[in-house]
């Protein structure tokens, strides 16, 4: 049966080649994205505006984010944290006093390696090809794994029906229902219309720059190239795509 053995060896060889090729393709999947949406935030400009809430109000109005005062139930897409809370890993002794205790805007980092996406058992949240991390509220089962997985606290759970807490619901964007998770969607619906994210557009100080980080000529890339920028908890390997220019 030498012919049989030859056939077997040939098949085994092909299988080995196919396995190697598959592994190589798997590595290729880790290549940088062709488009990579992100935002650079000029922290000092934002701080100079004092107690400005323009970005928060614009975002929450555009997306029917409920105004629930009870902290146990509150829902937020974008909010402000004192600098040393947002950047807990920064050495408290080396933070310049110009930044210490100052509020900086924080929201979903649209991580390149999003832990929320990895834990979702319903595939209700995923990263698009351009890196935008989004949620399908229809499919969310409310398990809150993603809330636990996000190291930035960017996700809120609707413990109660949010509709009564939305003052004037916008027709353009749905509210959410009790039992689903929500967060910043980087204004996916506005981007589809060719508009900027609401927070970027609303900022009176022009402290936020939105764009394609994969494009070397984009405004956001230029800002990061020219000035020193930090990210929140980079040590966790989530590769956040919000850059804080300090």
């Amino acid at each position: 049966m030498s012919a049989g053995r030859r056939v077997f060896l040939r098949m085994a060889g092909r299988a080995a080649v196919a396995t190697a090729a598959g592994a190589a393709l798997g590595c290729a999947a880790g290549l940088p994205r062709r488009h990579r949406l992100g935002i650079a935030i000029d922290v000092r400009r934002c701080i100079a505006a004092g107690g400005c809430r323009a970005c928060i109000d614009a975002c929450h109005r555009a997306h029917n984010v409920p105004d629930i005062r009870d902290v146990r139930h509150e829902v937020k897409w974008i909010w402000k944290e004192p600098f040393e809370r947002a950047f807990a890993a920064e050495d408290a002794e080396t933070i310049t006093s110009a930044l210490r205790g100052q509020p900086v805007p924080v929201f979903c980092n649209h991580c390149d390696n999003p832990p929320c996406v990895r834990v979702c058992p319903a595939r209700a949240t995923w990263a698009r090809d351009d890196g935008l991390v989004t949620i399908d509220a229809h499919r969310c089962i409310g398990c809150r794994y993603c809330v636990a997985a996000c190291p930035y606290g960017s996700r809120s759970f609707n413990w109660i029906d949010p509709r009564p807490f939305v003052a004037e619901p916008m027709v353009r964007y749905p509210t959410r229902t009790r039992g689903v998770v929500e967060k910043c969607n980087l204004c996916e619906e506005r981007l589809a219309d060719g508009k900027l994210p609401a927070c970027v557009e609303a900022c009176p100080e022009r402290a936020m720059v939105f764009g394609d980080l994969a494009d070397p000529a984009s405004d956001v890339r230029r800002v990061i190239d020219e000035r020193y920028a930090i990210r929140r908890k980079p040590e966790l390997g989530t590769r956040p795509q919000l850059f804080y220019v300090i």
Partner: protein
Amino acid sequence: MRDRAVILGGLALFLAAVTWPAWRTLASTPPPPPDLQRPAGATRCVAPAAFMRASHMTLLVEWRDRVVRDGVRTYVDADGREVAMSLSETCVGACHTDKAKFCDRCHDYARVTVTCWNCHVAPPPPAPGGAR
């Protein structure tokens, strides 16, 4: 067999009680079909009325998946017309401007409870007397 009358009588009574709702429905006149408000501006839907009547929910679910999962927002109907795949802005916003007089009336008639509007926001119906 001394209890035959009691047993048969009880059985008949039981059958009558169990099938009572069916008899009542058969005897009553069916309620009139709901008076649905036709769109004032539009004359054609994105699909024939018969299809929409039977399968609008399937179409809406397909629209939902296309928009949310695939990021495709425009639907091209059989006539080549392009419409935005949006429940609030196309179905209700542009055509059936009063949800209560179209969606709700038929869903109430068919005793169907939908969850669409738990999240999606219906635009306010046009003011009566306004240009329709």
